[in-house]
Structure formats: structure tokens, C-alpha cells
């Protein structure tokens, strides 16, 4: 037996981010409270930037490393790079301290009872929550591993590593803490349930193929006759675990509750990055490991895609809370991506990669704007409060309008190019009915995004409307990056599309 080895160089981006998470825990343990926030922010940003540099350095690499369990190839690097950029911007929002006077958006101590004396004292002392940084580093690490995981076990580990910190982050809101904790609890319970499905399904597939590695599963697909039941049930259950993370119908029920309850900064981070990582993982599992039985899982995903688009948009119509509305919209966008997913070719991969990146920036920006519209109780997320916002803060409302237009897929925004590419991919993949549903649903969707724009610009302001908080340079910069990315990817999407096309090849 030859001793195994690890390709440290190819895994360096993940090692850096995980390392930053571990160091962050030690910072929590040893650095005095006064300096902790600054140290953590610098550490997180530096680690993400360094990891991104490493990803760029690795561009074009194609290896299966870590004894077959991690694949570093085009899609993995593209998604890792995108996650790093999006997480970098998310950290800006985490670091915002001006909106909540003297604090950030998180509870000073997540363990203190809501409404207790302990909480009150901590708020008075202006204690700052800093554990969010190591937690988010660990989550980012998991998100980087997820699309790179090349066997079922690594995939499961990545799934858990990215999920567990998110569960905690969701429960850490500074305001409306009970709602936030409820969201965390729901997310945790349902997430654990979904993970259970995934690992159960994985064990079935292992039982069928006798291996955890995707390449060997692929090889086993045609070879073993008579046990397809085991395989298909296993694939179905693994799909449940992954579709849960994407928020596809009927595994979407957690999305609105969690998006609404979580601190909005975390929602932004989660909505942009988790979906990205989950789609990456799903592509690798279904394309590399299970591509041979695509005719078996395509019909199921067709149904899921249609249900996801339709339910997401239709329910979004009657939402009165902006965060819930964006949550349903994110469900529907998952459905749009699924339309290309069933096409299974390089064009589809490129389309999905581009869409995920474009959508990530828009989502980050949109949620960040939500953090700024506030009244006495914190963020004013009820839609009626947003009436007439365009009169009081034209710039902010216009920026939000831009994000909404991008979500609706209006030309010259990144959303348009994204939608066009996924629909083209689906069309060429023979999924014409999906494209028709997608276009119809987009039309309805455009209606409700536009409704919010009408509400902001053409309605009278609510008499006791919210004020728009003046953010520090952190949030401003983050929103600006999101807006610029939205326009640039809409006007000049060529370079990123080319990059996505070059990256659109899975190593087997």
C-alpha cells in the first residue's frame, strides 16, 4: 500500500480560508475585546483576498486531489472564486457599525436570553459580536469545498461544514431576536432532515456502486444490472438533500422564514453564496457521477424546475414583506437555473456559472439596501413602508430599482444576460416546455418587481415612513460594487461569459 498524499498547492485556497476560521477562533480566545473586531475583520478580508489570489493562480488547473475526494477544475475554481468575491463583499456588510449605533447587526452575545438583564447590560457596554467572522470563514470554506467535492463523503462533509455555521449565524440577529432564533431552529431542524436524506441516499448509491467516488459510480452505472432500484432511490434521496439547499419546491418551505428571520446581512451572504455552492455540487454529482443515467433523473428535475418557478413567483406576488418577497424570488431563480441544469452540456454549465455569479451580486446588493431602510423597530421590511421611498432617497431607491430590474431580467442588467443564457441553454438542450414556462413566469415576475418600483417612485410616502440610515463606507462600498457589477455584467458580459465557457468542463 502506497501512502496517500495531499495536493496542498491545489487546495491552498480552501486551506487559507479554513485556516482563517481556526485562527479566528483563537483570536476570540486570546485577543482582548477592544481589538477583536478590527483583528477579525482584517483577518477575514485578508484571508478571502489571499485565497482569491490563489484561485486566480490556479486558473486552468485540472487535478483530482486528496486521494480522489476533491476535484480542482474549471467549474470548481470559477465557483470558488465567485464565492470568495461575494463573501468578501458580505464581510463589508458584516463590518457595518454605523447603522446600529455602536454595534453591528448581531446580538452582542447570542447566548444571552432575549430581553434579559444580561442582554441589556451587554448592549449598554456596546459589546460587539465578533464570532460571526470565524463562523462565516468556516461556512465559506465549506462552500468552496462543496462544488469541488468529488466523492459522496467529501460532499456530505462539505454540506455540513457550510450549513452548521449558517444555522448559528441565522440566530444571531440584534433585533427581533426571537424571530431570528426561531429561524435558526427551523433551518437547523429541516437542514438536518435534508442532510439525513442525502447521507441515506448516498449509502444506497454506495450499496449499488461499491464506491463513493463519482468516477467509479459512473463506471458502475451500466455495469450492474438488476439493482437499479437501489440506485434510483438513492439518487432521489441525494437530490432531496441538494435541492433543499437550493430552495427548490417542494423543499423550499424553510427559505422565506429563514431569510426573513436571519439578520439581513447573513441573508444576503447565504442567499448569494449557498445557492452557488449547492448548484456547483449538484452539477458535479449529477453530471460527473450520474451523467450516465440522465434520462432517469431529467424528468424528475423537469417537474421540480417547473414547480419551483411557478410556486416561487406566484407566492411572491402576495408577499407584503420585502425580505420574504426576495426569498420567494430567490426560489424562483433557483428554478430558472434548473431549466438549464437539465440540458447537461457545456453550454448549460457556462450558463449556470454565469447566472450564479450575476445573481449573487444582485442579491447581495438588494438585501444590503434592505438593511438601510429603517424605523424605530429596526429594519422596516413591510412593503407598505417602502411607498414613496423614491421621493425621499432617490439614489437609494434607484439603486434598489436597478437590482429589481436585474432580478426581473430587463436588458442592460446582468439578470437579462443571465436569463437569456440559461434559457438558450435549456432551449438547445431540448427543454422547450421549460423555456416556455420560464418566459411566462418571468413575465409575471417582472410584474411584481415593477410593482415595487411603482410603489417606491409613484406612490405617496407613508406618513410615518422609515428613515434611510446613512451607512458607513463599508455598506456603501458593498452596494456600489453590487450595482456596478449588475450594470457591467449587463452591458459587457463578454469577458465573464468567456471565462465561464472556458471553465465549463468537469474533470472526471
Amino acid at each position, binding site marked *: *500500500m502506497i*501512502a*496517500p498524499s495531499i495536493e496542498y498547492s491545489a487546495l491552498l485556497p480552501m486551506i487559507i480560508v479554513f485556516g482563517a476560521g481556526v485562527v479566528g477562533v*483563537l483570536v*476570540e480566545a486570546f485577543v482582548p475585546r477592544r481589538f477583536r473586531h478590527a483583528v477579525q475583520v482584517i483577518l477575514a478580508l485578508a484571508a478571502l483576498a489571499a485565497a482569491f489570489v490563489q484561485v486566480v493562480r490556479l486558473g486552468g488547473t485540472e487535478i483530482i486531489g486528496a486521494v480522489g475526494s476533491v476535484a480542482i477544475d474549471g467549474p470548481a475554481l470559477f465557483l470558488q472564486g465567485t464565492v470568495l468575491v461575494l463573501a468578501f463583499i458580505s464581510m463589508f456588510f458584516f463590518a457595518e457599525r454605523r447603522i446600529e449605533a455602536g454595534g453591528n447587526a448581531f446580538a452582542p452575545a447570542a447566548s444571552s436570553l432575549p430581553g434579559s438583564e444580561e442582554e441589556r447590560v451587554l448592549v449598554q457596554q456596546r459589546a460587539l459580536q465578533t464570532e460571526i467572522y470565524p463562523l462565516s470563514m468556516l461556512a465559506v470554506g465549506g462552500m468552496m469545498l462543496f462544488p469541488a467535492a468529488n466523492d459522496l463523503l467529501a460532499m456530505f462533509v462539505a454540506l455540513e461544514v457550510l450549513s452548521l455555521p449558517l444555522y448559528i449565524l441565522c440566530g444571531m440577529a440584534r433585533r427581533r431576536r426571537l424571530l431570528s432564533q426561531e429561524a435558526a431552529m427551523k433551518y437547523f431542524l429541516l437542514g438536518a432532515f435534508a442532510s439525513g436524506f442525502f447521507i441515506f441516499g448516498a449509502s444506497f448509491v454506495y450499496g449499488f456502486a461499491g464506491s463513493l467516488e463519482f468516477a467509479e459510480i459512473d463506471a458502475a452505472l451500466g455495469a450492474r444490472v438488476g439493482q437499479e432500484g437501489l440506485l434510483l432511490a438513492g439518487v432521489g434521496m441525494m437530490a432531496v438533500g441538494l435541492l433543499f439547499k437550493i430552495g427548490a419546491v417542494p423543499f423550499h418551505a424553510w427559505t422565506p422564514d429563514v431569510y426573513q428571520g436571519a439578520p439581513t446581512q447573513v441573508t444576503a451572504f447565504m442567499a448569494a453564496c449557498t445557492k452557488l455552492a449547492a448548484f456547483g455540487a449538484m452539477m458535479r454529482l449529477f453530471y460527473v457521477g450520474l451523467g450516465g443515467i440522465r434520462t432517469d433523473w431529467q424528468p424528475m428535475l423537469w417537474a421540480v424546475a417547473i414547480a419551483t418557478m411557478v410556486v416561487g413567483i406566484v407566492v411572491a406576488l402576495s408577499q407584503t414583506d420585502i425580505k420574504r418577497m426576495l426569498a420567494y424570488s430567490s426560489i424562483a431563480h433557483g428554478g430558472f437555473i434548473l431549466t438549464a441544469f437539465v440540458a447537461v452540456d457545456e453550454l448549460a454549465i457556462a450558463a449556470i456559472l454565469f447566472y450564479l455569479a450575476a445573481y449573487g451580486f444582485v442579491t447581495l446588493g438588494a438585501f444590503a439596501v434592505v438593511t438601510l431602510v429603517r424605523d424605530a423597530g429596526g429594519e422596516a421590511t413591510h412593503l407598505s413602508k417602502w411607498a414613496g421611498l423614491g421621493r425621499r432617497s432617490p439614489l437609494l431607491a434607484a439603486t434598489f430599482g436597478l437590482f429589481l430590474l436585474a432580478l426581473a431580467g430587463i436588458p442592460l442588467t446582468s439578470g437579462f444576460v443571465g436569463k437569456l443564457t440559461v434559457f438558450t441553454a435549456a432551449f438547445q438542450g431540448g427543454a422547450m416546455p421549460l423555456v416556455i414556462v420560464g418566459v411566462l413566469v418571468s413575465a409575471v415576475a417582472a410584474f411584481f418587481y415593477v410593482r415595487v418600483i411603482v410603489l417606491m417612485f409613484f406612490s405617496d410616502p407613508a406618513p410615518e415612513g422609515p428613515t434611510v440610515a446613512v451607512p458607513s463606507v463599508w455598506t456603501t462600498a458593498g452596494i456600489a460594487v453590487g450595482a456596478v457589477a449588475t450594470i457591467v455584467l449587463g452591458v459587457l458580459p463578454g469577458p465573464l461569459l468567456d471565462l465561464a465557457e472556458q471553465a465549463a468542463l468537469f474533470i472526471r
Partner: protein
Amino acid sequence: MDLYAPMIGLIILGAVFAVFSVVVSTVIGPKRYNRARLDSYECGIEPTPQPVGGGRIPIKYYLTAMTFIIFDIEIIFLYPWAVRFDHLGVFGFVAMVTFLFLITVPFVYEWRRGGLEWD
């Protein structure tokens, strides 16, 4: 299916044995009730009075339990590594040292944050 036949046999055997022992003990066992028998079993000590439904267990209990699990898992990984130490070589050594370090970090964190102070 031949592959799974012994497994299924074992599952059936286990189930039969469990049902058999419960049924048999109620059928042939002596039935003498007293207070001690009806109390919940707590290592032979007098049970503390508790509200209906079990009540809350102090959060410290979980901290201790989790600290225990950390070391428990550490041991679980150390055994097979020790057995195959010669084969795994430098790779295994580096991996295990990394693992031990990672296990230590949360422990240090818990210690610095006062998780080990009982009151």
C-alpha cells in the same frame, strides 16, 4: 439480493429476540411492585424531585457532554491511525497532528471563554 440475505436474517433475529424477551419477562416474571421499582433509575441514588415532563437540564451539562465528545472522537480516530501508523507514514503523522491541533482549538476556546468554570 443474496448479498443482503444474512443481513436481513440478522435484523429479523434481533427483532424476534427483543420481542421475545419483553413478552417472556412479563409472562413468566414475578410481579411485586413497590416504590423503588416504580421510581426512575438514576444510578441507585435517590431521584431528585422533577416537574412533569422532565424539566430543564442545566446548560452546563451539555457543555461537559460536548467536551467529552470532542475527546471521544479524538480517541476514535487515534486507534485506527495507531494501528496503521507504519503504512501511513509522514502523511499520516502530519494529518494526525493537524487533527489534534484542530481538536485542541475549540477546547482552548471553551477554556478561555469560561466553559470549564463550574460556577
